[in-house]
């Protein structure tokens, strides 16, 4: 996706086992922080008026 111009941090992939609660919390915090840093995704806003 980064190749096609989506900001690299916008999509993240992680592997968390159901037993890894601490890692899960860490991942959620990290992702939230990096996405907030990027700000709203203006690329994916529709520009055409909605019809019907």
């Amino acid at each position, binding site marked *: 996706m980064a*190749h*096609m111009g989506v900001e690299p941090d916008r999509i993240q992939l992680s592997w968390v086992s159901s037993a890894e609660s601490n890692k899960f919390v860490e991942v959620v915090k990290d992702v939230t922080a990096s996405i907030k840093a990027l700000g709203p995704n203006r*690329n994916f806003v529709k520009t055409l008026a909605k019809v019907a």
Partner: protein
Amino acid sequence: MTGYIEKIREIAARLLTDGTVEMVIGFRKGTVPMMNEPFFVKNPLEVATLVWDSNCGINLANYLTDRKEKIAVLAKGCDSRNIVTHIIENKIKREQLYIIGVPCKGMIDRQRIAGRVDGEILKVVEAEERVVVSGRGFEKTFDKADVLQANCRLCIHRNPVLYDELAAELVSEQQDVDRYVEERRIEAMDVQQRWAYFDELLASCIRCYACRNACPLCYCPTCFVDESRPQWVGKSIDPIDTRTFHFLRAYHCAGRCTDCGACERACPVGINMRVFTKKLEKDCLELYGWEAGMSLDQRPPLDTYKVDDPEIFIK
């Protein structure tokens, strides 16, 4: 390549007469020049309609999905790799198929030719490495090498990888082809430039889905773009809906695309569709050493796990 015709007709007639197959899938002349169309021969008397020249770019693997009868199919290098993919994905059984391998020297790009002449092309004659195009008041000769489809120019698998019989001698493969020039150019851009690059690429897309229909990998009974409950992607021609469609279509081809060029060939507005799938193809090759459709014995990287699979993208 036109010399293959007699041999192809002879094989087709033999297979249909002796009952080896119920149907032969090949090509016949289209109604306009440079537009050969797939032809399903069931009657041995019809084999004379079969043709072969440099306008047989359509990927015939597309017509094998879920067929039940015994079929003989003509297969260029790319077709044969897609047939392998079909067999691996259980869309047809190997036993049902009699594959007539057709070593290929590349298909010509009709849009490229049409762009270089003034007026309507009425007749196209091929002789060895030349293509003579004529219409009302003009005649022009092209070197075939100059008017090849973009993917054929970069092709390194011209010979079929799987066949029961060959229609001609194997051809020599192109050596030292740098397949990923454009991909490296895009990789060198920053994120905004890439976004702009793909914006421009897709600006003329009318979402006719010809690329999807021509692609032998796209065989889902209901495509995600046609679903309305739930609706995965907007159906408008808003640029972002169009782009989402192309993103998803490309991803569905990951590890499966053979760069046969069917999507690009089918595109009525001439979008270089392969830019999407080529990057995935490049990654598959670099990360997993995988080229789609080369062998029946190897599982694709996306449905196997190996201990040494790269995981740089997992955080």
